[in-house]
């Protein structure tokens, strides 16, 4: 069971790491404005998310007390929720500007 958990954590680390790189590259291409600000926030959240993904299996490996692991888990979930909130804002603004909303 623990092997599956480590495999999932490894996969999460790879995907999140790639996302951090992509977001940082795109950040350099965005001129600014509200979308630029939000993209900066998204990139920072992604970096924290990546850190959380790195620490989770490490905590399991080091047998960190369960309450600390739970705290880490919920913090990562909160970051994910904030990330989605910011992403929806960007998509809403872009669709609104392009007049693609009903």
């Amino acid at each position, binding site marked *: 069971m623990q092997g599956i958990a480590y495999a999932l954590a490894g996969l999460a680390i790879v995907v999140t790491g790639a996302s951090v790189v992509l977001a940082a590259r795109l950040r350099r291409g965005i001129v600014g404005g*509200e*979308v630029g600000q939000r993209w900066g926030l998204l990139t920072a959240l992604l970096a924290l998310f990546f850190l959380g993904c790195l620490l989770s299996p490490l905590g399991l490996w080091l047998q960190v007390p369960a309450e600390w692991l739970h705290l880490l888990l919920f913090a990562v979930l909160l970051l994910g929720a904030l990330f989605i909130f910011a992403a929806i804002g960007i998509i809403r603004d872009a669709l609104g500007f392009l007049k693609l909303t009903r």
Partner: protein
Amino acid sequence: MDHASPQEVALQQLAAVPGVVGSLIFDAAGKVQASAFPAVFDSWGLAQLAAQLAADAFFQEWMAGDQGLLTLRFVDGQVALRSLGGAYALVFAGAQANEQLLSMSLAQLARRLQARPPPPVSPPPSAAAEGIPVLTPVRPPAAVQPASLPARPAAPPAAAPASPGPVGRLEDLAREELGERAEQALRILAAAGPRTKDQLRAISEVEKLVRLFISKRKAEELARRMRAVLEE
């Protein structure tokens, strides 16, 4: 920069049009008055080109009047020429450049330059010392005889300047504020109707575009200046 001639300023603004590689203005005698080409372009060659075009009878016939326009399309680029009433503007752009946008920008340049008093044919000697590029063909063709050129409508006198329309001024503002990022804003302005209501709506859209993707501060400033133009 403070000493740039009106032609040079106009060419610099033209350079902000996406796809434009370089541009120059030459007079009826084939003498280059202002140039905004990258350094890789041989200035002597450009001066030769201007002299040959000005000396060409077909070119003169085609470009007669203030509205003369000639576009030459190539596989990897295009050249647009516009009559400025006694002078010509030449623009070299990449093949991907928007032809309509280029044509509109040239028309705007023509309006702006024709609204000013015609510049002297020969710039003062101090101009070169001030860094203003003055290109002169080394070997002007013998066929160039400005005095014998067919009567060409002169530029309007300074006392009655042809003021560009509000959309043209809005486009100028967009170029001035946004530089090379003005393309989308120019499209929005170009698509606006002639009514003030349509133009105000276009200004709001440009403001939103700039606020979302470029800068909130710049959006407010640009919209304020654009609305002031419409209120005049």
